């Protein structure tokens, strides 16, 4: 058996047939209805677990008690039900909401935030309820958003509350970004018979194997590249190349480090981040596939991308889709009548709406504890380096899209060297802009100084 055949085992008809024979009973039992019920039951468990973890938290204006969390849970359930009813009866909603459902949804979030800011200890447990609801809402808002998009496109018919609920507190995992998007996308990818389920499950198993492999690679990277290494380093004879982490180099502004080591660290960080996303994303998508939702991977060979826009598509697919669905495509469509004769301006506006404005907004409301306490400006200040990162990202994507449009329809460019140079260019672009996105407390100026040090332009002390 060739390596490529081995890698594509999940597509091999013999393997699929074997899986169907071996696990025929399970495949027959695991009907779409049962699969959804299992995931919805899991969602209840996740909701309870997540809310329980908030009991006793003292990061908010006041400590949260068990009673407050229970009531907040009921309010959140009520909101989920209300948004479901609104989506199910979308046609009967007021015209403004039908035209701007996402604005209305985010208006509700900001309304709860406003109430949380105005709340006082005199309100007793209701203050805690407001704080918890406003705290949890950023996790739910994009998930409710996908449900409303489905309603806007007239695809709600035949879906029940539990179908959507399983995406609200997904047992398969996720961050504020909904992996697998909403039920609209999930149901389109859902296995309808035993053979499709077998295919989907085998594809999920492949992702679990890949996730394990990339996890080992991450450990090896930590052990062999990054100094001082980890527990594995000792087992491997104590050898480590000793490359500093990018966050550390940025904080030190590259001082005392040879510039070529800094460059290696830049590229290592890119590889590290790609692997980290792949490990987590593969696990989540694997669970979805095992439950019959054969959705796209979150990360698909981004390091082989030949353009910036291709990398953005492949690196963190579900975040890119979120930006595309809620910012890029609506902006592009809305500007159709006004900017029809200025296609480049229209594209520029849509790209910046997504990669810059949407990206910043997503990360601002993700800082939920600061938001709940009313420290919106502090949140924006925290994101000051990200502003620059998002600006460069948006600019890069825009230019890349224009270049892709020019290249489209032409035959593939021959030559490994040209392909290698394109890939190297993409690595360099993302490696460099990541200087303004790497975690750590480094100031914007420190990041600029580190960037300059890569070119031997360290500012005078």
């Amino acid at each position, binding site marked *: 058996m060739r390596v490529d055949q081995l890698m594509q085992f999940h597509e091999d008809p013999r393997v699929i047939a074997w899986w169907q024979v071996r696990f025929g009973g399970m495949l027959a039992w695991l009907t779409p209805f049962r699969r959804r019920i299992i995931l919805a039951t899991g969602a209840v468990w996740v909701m309870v677990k997540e809310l329980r973890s908030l009991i006793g938290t003292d990061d908010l204006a006041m400590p949260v008690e068990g009673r407050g969390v229970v009531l907040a849970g009921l309010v959140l359930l009520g909101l989920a039900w209300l948004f479901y009813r609104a989506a199910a009866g979308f046609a009967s909603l007021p015209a403004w909401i039908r035209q701007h459902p996402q604005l209305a949804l985010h208006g509700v979030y900001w309304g709860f935030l406003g109430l949380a800011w105005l709340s006082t200890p005199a309100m007793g447990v209701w203050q805690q309820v407001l704080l918890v609801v406003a705290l949890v809402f950023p996790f739910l808002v994009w998930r409710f958003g996908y449900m409303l998009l489905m309603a806007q496109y007239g695809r709600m018919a035949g879906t029940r509350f539990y179908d959507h609920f399983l995406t609200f507190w997904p047992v398969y995992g996720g961050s504020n970004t909904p992996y697998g998007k909403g039920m609209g996308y999930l149901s389109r990818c859902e296995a309808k018979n035993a053979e499709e389920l077998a295919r989907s499950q085998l594809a999920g198993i492949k992702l679990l194997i890949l996730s394990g492999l990339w996890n080992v690679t991450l450990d090896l990277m930590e052990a062999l590249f990054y100094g001082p290494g980890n527990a594995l380093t000792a087992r491997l004879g104590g050898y480590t190349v000793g490359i500093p982490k990018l966050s550390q180099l940025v904080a030190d502004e590259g001082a005392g480090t040879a510039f070529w080591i800094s460059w290696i660290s830049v590229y290592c960080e890119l590889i590290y981040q790609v692997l980290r996303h792949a490990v987590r994303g593969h696990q989540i998508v694997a669970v979805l596939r095992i439950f019959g939702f054969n959705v796209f991977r979150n990360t698909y060979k981004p390091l082989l991308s030949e353009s910036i826009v291709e990398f953005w*598509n492949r690196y963190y697919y579900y975040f890119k889709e979120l930006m595309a669905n809620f910012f890029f495509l609506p902006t592009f469509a809305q500007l*159709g009548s006004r900017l029809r004769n200025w296609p480049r301006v229209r594209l520029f506006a849509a790209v910046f709406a997504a990669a810059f404005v949407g990206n910043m907004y997503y990360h601002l409301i993700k800082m939920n504890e600061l938001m709940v306490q009313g420290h919106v400006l502090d949140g924006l200040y925290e994101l000051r380096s990200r502003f620059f990162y998002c600006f460069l990202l948006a600019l890069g994507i825009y230019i890349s899209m224009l270049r892709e449009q020019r290249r489209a329809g032409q035959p593939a460019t021959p030559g490994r060297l040209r392909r290698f140079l394109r890939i190297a260019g993409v690595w360099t672009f993302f490696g460099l802009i990541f200087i303004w996105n790497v975690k750590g407390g480094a100031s914007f100026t420190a990041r600029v100084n580190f960037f300059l040090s890569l070119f031997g332009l360290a500012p005078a002390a």
Partner: protein
Amino acid sequence: MMGAQREQRLQDLIRFLRTIQKPNRPIDSVGVNEGLVASGLIDSLAIVQIVVYLEQTYGIDFAAGGFDPDRLATMASILDLIEETCR
């Protein structure tokens, strides 16, 4: 049986898609009901080029009716959208 007008629109659409297809994924290898993004013919952001094509060729106004990317997922669904709009 595909109507003559639908067949003509499909040929026009294929001609257009040939101008935006990725170099290593020719349109001739993609079925009418196959996902354009899923097949790798285009990426999901390149859908905007199909939007512009439909606006310019058929006068479809995406701002008015909301923009559902799924309607542009396959050649068949694009043809359905054109028929609904031009009806």
